[in-house]
């Protein structure tokens, strides 16, 4: 049975598998990278099935390549559908980006120009993916290091995309901060332009300062400026399922759960403020 995602979760990473299999991790849901489990069988699928028995699940893809000018791959969609049918996740998501062209796959989340042409391509691909999966998807705003000349801002693109396709947004607050700093726009303007009623999930993560740009590394604790932006986002969006992505330099589970408690506290505070207002 497909469940509704709610509460606070973590990305399920290998060092903590035992706690998810046992059901002792104090989280409401888990998220995994879809492609890691789009496999014939074996221990990874067995582990996820056991964890799935204890937690609601979000499948988060990195290779759908929703922005590819030459369309989506049938074999990818079929494999993703197979995993969705097995796991019955509460959420299936990917990124507003492209990773593949002409049979080349970059394995990186590459930026799109925010043009009418790109919007048409993305919307056509989203329609096809949602039809193939038979369900609504969420798409995450990317962090980026290149800003193409375009007719619209990223938030305008996202708003049009959700309106035209009915998809939802996975709002990555760290990515907003990274891109805002790299491209010189105001994160507050970004949040103000997002249709908050379409936000189905929020990601929190850390980043590092590179030589010239902020780099979205997912290997650091959530920094104060991202917490501040999360507060602003929840003030606008209300209670949205929220999770922390930590992909490298992974600490003990307790440390991640303590960070998640900060998210819980901020969400509760902004909920109180909304009620008071």
């Amino acid at each position, binding site marked *: 049975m497909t469940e509704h995602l709610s509460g606070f979760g973590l990305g399920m990473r290998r060092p903590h598998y035992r706690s998810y299999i046992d059901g002792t991790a104090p989280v409401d849901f888990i998220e995994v990278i879809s*492609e*890691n489990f*789009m*496999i*014939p*069988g*074996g*221990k*990874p*699928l*067995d582990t996820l099935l056991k964890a799935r028995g204890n937690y609601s699940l979000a499948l988060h893809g990195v*290779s759908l*390549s929703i*922005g*590819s*000018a*030459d369309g989506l*791959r049938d*074999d*990818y969609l079929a494999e993703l559908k197979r995993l969705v049918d097995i796991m019955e996740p509460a959420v299936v998501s990917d990124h507003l980006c*492209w*990773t*593949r*062209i*002409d*049979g*080349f*796959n*970059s*394995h*990186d989340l*590459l930026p*799109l*120009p925010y*043009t009418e*042409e*790109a919007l048409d*391509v993305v919307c056509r691909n989203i329609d096809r993916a949602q039809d193939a999966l038979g369900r609504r998807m969420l798409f995450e705003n990317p962090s*980026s*290091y*290149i*800003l*193409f*000349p375009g007719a619209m801002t990223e938030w305008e693109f996202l708003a049009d995309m959700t309106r035209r396709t009915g998809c939802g947004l996975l709002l990555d607050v760290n990515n907003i901060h990274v891109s805002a700093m*790299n491209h010189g726009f105001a994160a507050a303007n970004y949040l103000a332009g997002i249709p908050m009623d379409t936000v189905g999930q929020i990601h929190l993560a850390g980043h590092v300062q*590179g*030589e*010239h*740009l902020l*780099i979205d590394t997912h290997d650091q604790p959530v920094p104060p400026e991202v917490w501040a932006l999360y507060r602003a986002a929840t003030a606008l969006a209300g209670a949205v399922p929220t999770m922390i992505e930590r992909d490298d330099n992974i600490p003990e589970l307790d440390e991640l759960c303590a960070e998640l408690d900060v998210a819980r506290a901020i969400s509760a505070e902004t909920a109180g403020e909304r009620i008071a207002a």
Partner: protein
Amino acid sequence: MSLLAMQRDFRDWLVTGEDAAAAGLGGGNGPAVYQNNYRTALVSSLAETFQRLALWLGDAAFEAAAARYIDARPPSSWTLDAYGEDFTAFVDGLYRDDPEVAELASIDWTVGQVFVSPDAEALRPEALADPGAVADWETAVIHPMPSLLVMPIKTNADAIWQALATGETPPPAEAVEDGTALLIWRQGLEPVFRRADVHECDVLAWSAAGDGFAAICERLAATLGEDAAVTTAGTLLGRWLAEGMVAAVG
């Protein structure tokens, strides 16, 4: 510039690192970040997949081989785990005089494939204890587990691999008897492997081709004699059952 043209320029930049391709991406510091991400992810993927090979070659030699592979073979699969599919053949070309190198790579790769191979329940030895368990032994075909792969070897790469995997000092590379192969399969959720001689490999190949138990004994008899053939076939089946290598007999 159209979206398709931009994406092809971006691909060219990632694959070649040539400044001309980056110019179409607006210049600045951003393209270098993506170029670094691209190569770092591919090197990391190869290092994860070919852990024992990397230990055998050492970091510098492994990273040099990985860099040449990345230049020669841009990734095409949607899963990063598949990127190393041609790496064994590639390092074989780089280390022609050291056949254990490609064999180590092949073991790394094959163990990874077996790890995520389709699930199946192994036939328990006691399932054949009942005299009626197999209707007709003459025609009964042995069906190995779907995870089973047979890998011919010319060196003791398996012993080197095991030593590297357990942190022991690996033995020097040396040749093994002609016709030796590794059987690699999954016991439950864990990949395992061991050596097999030419007779065992023959029996597996004949089984895979659909030969029944009687036909296998007959073919074995051509080289071992009739009595030894029946004994060998029975012993192999018993061992395979005990090792969880058989999915069905019938």
